[in-house]
Each structure stands twice: as C-alpha cells, then as structure tokens.
C-alpha cells in the first residue's frame, strides 16, 4: 500500500479548467456509490453542473496529488439557528484509495474552514453505515462518532442509515 508524504497532498480552490477531471471523477462507479450525485446523461450536463454548482460552492477545494486533481472536498454551511455547524463532504478517485489522501485532505480542510469561518463551532459528516472506508477516515482525523441516524437520507432513492461524526473547533486534533 503506497503512502504519500503529506506534502504531496494539497488542497486548492477550483479552477474552471478542473471540469474535465471532475467529470472523470464522477464517472467513476465506485465514487458514485455513496455520492448523492447521479451519473450525468452527457458531458455537457456534467460541465453545466460543475459550473453552476461546484464552482460557486461556498467552500470547495480540489484535492491534488503531486499537483494533479484526484478528488474534491467541500463544506456546506447551515443558516440561522444552525449556523454554528457545517457539513463536510468529499470524494477521491477510486484508483487513489488506500493511500491516506482523504485523511490528509480532511485534516487540511477542517483546519482551514475553522479559520475561514470564525463563527463555525461544529463540522459534521454523515457517512453511510455501509461505507467503512470513510468512517475510518473520520476516526483517523479525530472526528467523534456520535451515533447512527436511522433511515436518515435517500441514496439512489433508498432510505439509508448513516453514522454521524463531528469535529468541534475546540477539539484536540485542531489545537
């Protein structure tokens, strides 16, 4: 199992030239398995989604390995009485799994978003119960596993149980 030095793994803002890499990322069946994104019907539709949804996202970064985009990580804010929290999500190309890339990216993104959003107190992640890989990533970064939410969300139209994790701005891994 190849591991890369963390310095090979970087996160950076998206660029419109990333559209091709994003399309390939989501064309990957293994990536789509736990993604809420459906397969696009055409390349044009995929580019349209990238431009209209990914590019303007409130907080999104490309995950790069030696400068090459291999995934993306985003933090979606909540509003009003829920603005103390935000939800983390990420995808990594399946041929890059098992190399510590997601773990490194989540650590970097968590540190960065708490700096960018001073009002943020809680970063949470909702992980499908049948996605042990991502559950392990959360645990390795230092997120706390809080419980299982039953039939919490729909994945490809089916209700799924999900594990909820959280990292607080005051939690240890960030200090």
């Amino acid at each position, binding site marked *: 199992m190849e591991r890369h030095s963390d310095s090979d793994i970087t996160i950076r803002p998206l660029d419109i030239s990333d559209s091709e890499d994003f399309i390939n990322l989501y064309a990957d069946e293994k990536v789509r398995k736990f993604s809420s994104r459906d397969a696009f019907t055409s390349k044009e539709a995929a580019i349209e989604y990238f431009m209209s949804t990914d590019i303007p996202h409130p907080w999104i970064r490309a995950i790069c390995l030696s400068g090459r985009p291999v995934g993306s990580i985003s933090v979606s804010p909540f509003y009003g*009485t829920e603005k103390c*929290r935000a939800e983390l999500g990420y995808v990594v190309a399946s041929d890059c799994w098992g190399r510590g890339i997601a773990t490194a990216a989540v650590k970097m993104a968590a540190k960065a978003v708490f700096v960018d959003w001073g009002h943020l*107190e809680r970063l949470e992640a909702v992980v499908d119960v049948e996605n042990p890989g991502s559950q392990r990533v959360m645990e390795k970064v230092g997120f706390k596993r*809080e*419980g299982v939410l*039953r*039939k919490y*969300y729909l994945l490809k139209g089916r209700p799924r149980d999900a594990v909820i994790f*959280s990292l607080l701005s005051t939690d240890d891994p960030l200090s």
Partner: protein
Amino acid sequence: MAENTTENHKRSSKISLRPIQLSHIDDFMVWATDDRVSQYCIWDTYTSKVQALDFIKNNAMPHPWFRVICVENRAVGSISVSPNSGNDSCRGELGYVLAYEHWGKGVATKVVKMVVSSIFREWPHLERLEAYVDANNKGSQRVLEKAGFIREAVLRKHRIIKGISRDMVVFSILSSDQHLDS
C-alpha cells in the same frame, strides 16, 4: 417539563389538534410570551401581538403541517412536522410547544403519539420522524421516549438557542417502528 408518573391523572379532558387561526392569538400569547416555555426553543419569547400575528399568518398558517393543541376547546400549545426536500425527503422534523400550565399532565406525550399515528399515513414517503431536544431538557426527552421514539445520539453544539450553541439529543421514530395503539 415534568410528567406525572401516576396513571390516574387521565381525566377525560378532550385533547385535539386543529388548524391554527388568527383568532387563536390570545391563547398563543399565553405560551409565546412565557420565558419558561421558550427556554429550550429556538425562538425567542414574543414581546408583542404584532410579532405573534405575523408568525401565525406568515409561518404557522402556510406551514406544511402545523396544528394547535386544544384542551377542552382552548389552544394551549402547538405541534408541527417540517418536511425536507430532495435526498432528505424521507425525514421530517417534529417540534412542539405547550403552555406551562399544562405541563406534567401527559398532554405532550398524548399529542406526540397522535401525530405519530397519523403523519406516516398522511405522508407515505416519510420514513423517519425525528426530533432535536436540548440536552438539558429532560422533560421533553422523557415525552419522546414515552411516545416510542429512540434516542440515537447527542450532537455536540448542534443548534443555537438563546445565542449559545447547544448539545442536542436526536430522537427518531420510523414508519416501521411506530405502533398504532395510541
């Protein structure tokens, strides 16, 4: 919110759920202006009738599922189920509020059970009814447990109540869990 443990407090006081009307304003003001009632709620104590009428007209009346809780034809609180959209549409969030005078009589437990027994039939796509309760609000936690909800987790610093982020306990009942014997 304390619940009586003795069962013999079950009078035949008629409890019903009804659509809210502007004419409920005076009853609404009784619980909405009470700090003891708003303490664990995400809304701040109401300070004027204008503010309350605005809520009734622009929030409560157009709400997808909102009812006043009536005891002997008098509105003493409200209960609602808020739907979600898209990939979250399998779940709805329950919320309720009850005038202080009616605490400890089993009213909240009764109305929550009433909602549970009808909402899954009214919204066939609903799989999960959830509720988020301040970790310090032991009374409401007991109401949900008695109504058959399962306590799933404590979510740290999940919601802002009265300006401070709070730990919230999340409870749920599934369409496949619920018993129809309320």
